[in-house]
């Protein structure tokens, strides 16, 4: 390499500067040079990664901590699949940058103009905008805020982010699972950088989470009544009660009973319910997909 490039450079440099007047450069020289450059690019570890950012609005930082709760898995994600380009405390970047995937944590406080502006900026600058966690997706516990709290007593209007911007994908629960954000990050990588087969898999995997974003931004334990039991779909498996982060659900004679005073409206029960959605095209291949994700993280 050191032997070749000094020889070719003097020939190419003038050719490049004369490109507009002389488009036909010696083909053989150019091809050699391009090859060298491509190889060097691929050797850079950042070459094929996607960029991910986290916009922090009115949330408790539990979602951000959840991302870090992947422990060594987070390093693997950042080494091989994604650059973290924006995140409170983790990245020293002040302004919302361009990014492939923006994870938004927290609901949006309409009384805080900066929140609204940053959310809109994040929407404009990202390819995929994810409501990361229950506050962003459904409002969660901020649904109960009526203002008067220290130290911003005037802040009382909190809405799920989809009231302000279009959202592509929901990742509910309070907090979401580290494994869920890991799976979504790997799938987003496959979707944006993978081959056709990988793109198809990633699309199939992400589809229900995208449909969830279209379903609406109100969640409650009542969803189990309205959209599962009332619809004649509940078979009493117990998943909703098992997944509830605040233990608001018990199983009484084979059906869920929601203590609505405890429910924080995080949407976990409905999203985890096998009768909210069950996509056979993905689930039937569970062994292969789990092995693939495990392999990607090693």
């Amino acid at each position, binding site marked *: 390499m050191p032997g070749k490039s000094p020889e070719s450079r003097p020939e190419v440099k003038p050719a490049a500067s004369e490109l507009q007047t002389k488009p036909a450069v010696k083909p053989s020289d150019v091809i050699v040079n391009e090859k060298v450059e491509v190889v060097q690019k691929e050797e850079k570890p950042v070459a094929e990664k996607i960029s991910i950012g986290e916009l922090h609005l009115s949330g408790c930082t539990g979602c951000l901590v959840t991302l870090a709760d992947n422990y060594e898995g987070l390093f693997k994600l950042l080494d091989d699949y994604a650059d973290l380009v924006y995140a409170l405390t983790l990245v020293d970047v002040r302004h919302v940058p361009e990014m492939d995937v923006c994870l938004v944590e927290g609901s949006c406080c309409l009384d805080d103009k900066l929140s609204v502006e940053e959310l809109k900026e994040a929407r404009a600058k990202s390819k995929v905008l994810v409501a990361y966690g229950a506050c962003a997706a459904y409002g969660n516990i901020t649904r109960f805020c009526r203002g008067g709290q220290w130290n911003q007593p005037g802040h009382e209007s909190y809405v799920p982010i989809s009231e302000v911007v279009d959202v592509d994908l929901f990742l509910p*629960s309070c907090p979401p699972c580290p494994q869920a954000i890991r*799976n979504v990050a790997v799938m987003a990588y496959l979707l944006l950088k993978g081959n056709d087969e990988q793109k198809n898999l990633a699309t199939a995997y992400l589809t229900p989470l995208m449909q969830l974003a279209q379903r609406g931004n109100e969640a409650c334990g009542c969803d189990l009544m309205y959209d599962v039991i009332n619809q004649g779909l509940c078979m009493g*498996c117990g998943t909703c009660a*098992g997944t509830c982060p605040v233990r608001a659900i018990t199983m009484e*004679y*084979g059906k869920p009973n929601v203590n609505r005073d405890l429910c924080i409206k995080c949407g976990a029960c409905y999203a985890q319910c096998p009768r909210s959605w069950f996509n056979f095209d993905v689930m039937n291949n569970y062994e292969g997909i789990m092995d693939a994700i495990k392999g990607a993280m090693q």
Partner: protein
Amino acid sequence: MDVLGNYKSAISARSTDGEILKKSQDGGIITTLFAYALEEGIIDGAIVAGPSDEPWKPEPMVATTKAELLAAAGTRYNISPNLYLIKEATRSYGLDRVGIVGVPCQIQAVRKVQLYPIGMRDVDDKIALALGIYCMENLSYQALEAIVEDHCNQKMESVKKMDIGKGKFTVYTERGAVSQMPLKLIHKYVQPGCHVCLDYVANLADISSGSVGSPDGWSTVFVRSMKGNAVWDGAMAAGLFETKPMDQVKPGLDLVKKLATEKITKNQKNVDARKTVGLKADGTPKGLRNPYESP
């Protein structure tokens, strides 16, 4: 996917453990496999349908000994919400390797928990063995009460065993009475949620088992996943099962396939019918929610 799902082998089998066979519904497959997995450290505990305060009402429990497994052996014919404990088993119980048994819809739920862990933090890689049991349809506890007490005229607390087979629901009491009712009369008591189920033999389990296809006292076993295969091979090597090839038993795999096809065809029709059950103002059909299409 075939109605019987992917499987590596199908075998007719029976436990060689007399103690288990005394309590088990058929071949004692699930109890024996969990006992073996506990013994070998493949699992630290298993979520099973344990006893409760009311007769024949199952309560999910984490079994960590063979005695606890035996207390949960046998079929109760009403739903035990075993997924209720799947996160708890890794928390309060501190299990790193969880076994779980469930009907097909519950095994589907297990796989959804693993692929889409929404509120199930740190659970996905702790599910070490998911065993499935065949299920045509299930009942609520109150429905089972109506069947046993009203139709069969027996008290719940005096029943020793319940069984479904040859078109009949049969109740055996402690004092030797046998009451039967035709299975078709049960239909109105079935949980509505069972009518959209498109899985009969727990296609997504590591190993699934049920009586259909094998002679009385034996079970038909499908070994499905890599994990399931390793456990089954280990249990066979330890001499825990006597087996017969499926093509040498009556009624054989054809009956399993026939019932699976019947269930899935019937329920697929119901899933489709739900799409046009109502009527819009413009005269076009209005549908109910379809979980197989979108949330």
